């Protein structure tokens, strides 16, 4: 019933649009802001395909109404590349190990892994599996995803 003006800082850019209160953050990103990199798999909080980083933490954007996020800083998969367009170490490692097939879960996986490496530069395999444990992938069996996170962690540590 109520409509709201909503302002977000997405991938460093301030963006505004108007939406119904019932619009979820993921629908807002995709439909209002045209950022379709974030995907929808279940809309009830289980698959993790819709993961974004909100104010520094990975969250499920299908479980947040956009109006609740008003004023928040959001990072989506579209914001992972450097300002020069270079792939992030994680993106590069995902490519190196072929940590995906259909690519549908990939944005969510990258977000979960990005958040992990931001707070834990040297995660164990168990910690990696825990960080992506709420993100379902039906294609890969996770092996190459875990490998990618390990490779990226090493690369980031070596780069300081």
């Amino acid at each position, binding site marked *: *019933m*109520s409509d*709201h003006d909503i302002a977000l800082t997405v991938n460093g850019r301030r963006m505004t649009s108007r939406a*119904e*209160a*019932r619009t*979820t953050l993921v*629908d807002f990103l995709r439909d209002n802001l045209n950022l379709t990199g974030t995907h929808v798999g279940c*809309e*009830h*909080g289980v698959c*993790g395909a819709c*993961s974004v980083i909100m104010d520094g*933490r*990975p*969250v*499920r954007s*299908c*479980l*947040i*109404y956009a*109006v*609740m996020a008003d004023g928040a800083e959001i990072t989506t998969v579209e914001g992972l590349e450097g300002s020069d367009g270079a792939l992030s170490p994680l993106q590069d490692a995902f490519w190196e190990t072929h940590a995906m097939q259909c690519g549908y879960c990939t944005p969510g996986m990258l977000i*979960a892994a990005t*958040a992990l490496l931001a707070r834990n530069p040297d995660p164990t395999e168990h910690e990696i599996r*825990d*960080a992506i*444990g*709420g993100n379902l992938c039906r294609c890969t069996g996770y092996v190459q995803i875990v490998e990618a996170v390990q490779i990226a962690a090493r690369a980031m540590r070596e780069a300081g």
Partner: protein
Amino acid sequence: MKAAAFDYIRADTVEEACRLLAEGEGEARIIAGGQTLVPLMAMRLARPELLVDINRIASLKGVTADGETLVIGAGTRQADVLADAEVAARAPLLAEALSHVGHEQTRNRGTVGGSLANADPTAEIGLVARTLDAEIVARSSGGERRIPAAAFFESAMVTTLAPEELLIALRLPVWTAPRTGHGFHELGIRHGDFAIAAAAAQLTLDSNGRCIRIHVGVGGASPCPVRLTAVEDALAGSPLDDAAIARATEDISDMLDPESDIHAGAEQRQRTARAMARRAIADARDRAQAGAA
């Protein structure tokens, strides 16, 4: 899977939230982390007319000490409680239980108050609250009251919180005695799933290794989390050897009243609860002994 339309107001203070709840006459609903409410609304199993967002009420957030009680604001994120040094040191049972609540991403949003108010029979936070005889603080425009956990959970997904009441804090007693240990075990189908059954135990040993204080609770195997006082009585004064634990928990099925659903049968929940209780008590004992060493 889109929610039915609703109005939305962000409350900036507890008073405002209480006022909105009172004015909403049952049609207004609090939204905290949204990790339960949003899916329910998406499936249109819940359709409030007004959502009152309490996420920006600063006074609902944080962990503070009040003597030998930890006061956890209802709006505190589960992830923040899990990472809290004071909780880890003084209420390790809660910290351990929290690691079983959903996933990192749901804990980053989900709140302690939301989990308590939701009263899922399998919820870990409610189980710890019940096991440790915590108090739940509720506020309405009419005032504040403290509800003992035993009186808070009424049945599955139902609490004694009135529609116009806002849950504002969880008051968790801290056990300060030496040789105190805790244990928490749960069986989920997958990691991070709601429990089929869970058990929490906290106990204190005397210098001879005999149990002088023990609380044991079970979740998922009854409409509400239950404290197993009969088990506690049987084990009080015992050295807590495995045989004694097994004996004391042998008949816990009589104390439980589980439901069957697609994930687990009722009898399975009873048997699993027994296994979890045994493991939780044994862990608590081992930790208490280790603490003594």
